[in-house]
């Protein structure tokens, strides 16, 4: 049985959230990490390569960051965010990027089954939530994305650097002001909290992949990296670098 570290860092500010994920990606680690977290206050995140001008919502949100991972913009409210950080040759991520998504999304779908949410990869289906002009992650989809009720409910993206991987994902509990088109967990399981979803995700990773988690807090080096780098992720220079 493999041991992973589980971090729960709920209600973190946007820049700190991204700084901590960068620490998980860049700092040496003995074990893979699954981090489950929420954002307080809510914020919009841009994908690494997105042009700021291509995301009209950016002008309307009070807070925004740019992620290290690719993909579209996400409004982080009414959701659980996860990040997975591990070596690129880990069996869960070995081989084509596409296959690693299938493995992780199958695990998330298993967790959602526990709430009666029938999540499955989009495949060739057209989605009612697709509106690609606004640059929002949940309004654009590919065949690997997890959907239910003809809407996208999980958005995720990876960063591969220095032999390590950071896999980010957002699982929507319900629509929010700037993510209005998403598939909603609460429409199937009213009252679901991020904490309940976090427990189900942990259980799914344990069952599907034989992982044993040790629940910990971020280490001192990770925390100081997150503090130090938080302003970078919210800075105009980084937000508007493209």
């Amino acid at each position, binding site marked *: 049985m493999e041991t992973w570290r589980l971090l729960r860092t709920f209600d973190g500010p946007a820049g700190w959230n991204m700084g901590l994920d960068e620490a998980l990606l860049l700092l040496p680690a003995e074990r893979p990490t699954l981090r489950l977290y929420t954002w307080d206050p809510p914020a919009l995140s841009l994908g*690494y*390569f997105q042009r700021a001008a291509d995301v009209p919502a950016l002008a309307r949100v009070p807070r925004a960051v740019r992620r290290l991972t690719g993909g579209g913009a996400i409004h982080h409210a009414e959701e659980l965010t996860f990040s997975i950080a591990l070596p690129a040759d880990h069996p869960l991520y070995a081989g084509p*990027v596409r296959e690693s998504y299938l493995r992780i999304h199958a695990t998330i779908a298993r967790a959602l089954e526990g709430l009666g949410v029938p999540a499955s990869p989009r495949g060739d289906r057209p989605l009612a939530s697709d509106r690609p002009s606004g640059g929002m992650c949940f309004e654009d989809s590919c065949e690997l994305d997890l959907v239910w009720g003809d809407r996208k409910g999980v958005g995720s993206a*990876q960063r591969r*650097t220095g032999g390590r991987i950071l896999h980010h994902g957002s699982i929507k509990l319900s629509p929010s002001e700037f993510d209005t088109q998403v598939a909603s967990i609460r429409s199937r399981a009213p009252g679901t909290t991020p904490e309940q979803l976090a427990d189900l995700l942990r259980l799914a990773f344990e069952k599907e992949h034989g992982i044993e988690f040790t629940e910990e807090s971020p280490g001192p080096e990770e925390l100081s990296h997150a503090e130090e780098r938080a302003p970078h992720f919210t800075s105009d220079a980084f937000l508007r670098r493209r």
Partner: protein
Amino acid sequence: MRPDDRKYTKTHEWVKRSGDNVLIGITDFAVQELCSGNEGDLVYCDLPEPGRVLEAGETFGEIESVKAVADLNTPVAGTVAEVNVAIEEHLEILSKDPFQEGWMLKITPKTKNFETDDMMDAAAYEEFVASAETH
């Protein structure tokens, strides 16, 4: 069989001598890992400006597929002499012809003997990739 006029790295870059310079690119295997045969899945590539000085192993750019952003690293130290800017606008080149049209950088190497012991010829790279595919 991949071209045998160049060397390959375990991180799926290739390097080829071109006069006093070295051409650098990524292999078909690297492209396949990123986009699984869907050439439209490659969405962005950021390459450096000519004149930039790079150390061996340094990140010189980034490439984004629909689902992953990955670093591009140079196996050879030197100064960027030329960049294949066509790639930035036409990413499909990387899927169609990663070994000729798909070169990314032309580098003037820091030392004439830029090859290292862990670089592989085409035959060794074939074996390496075959082994990676079965794991």
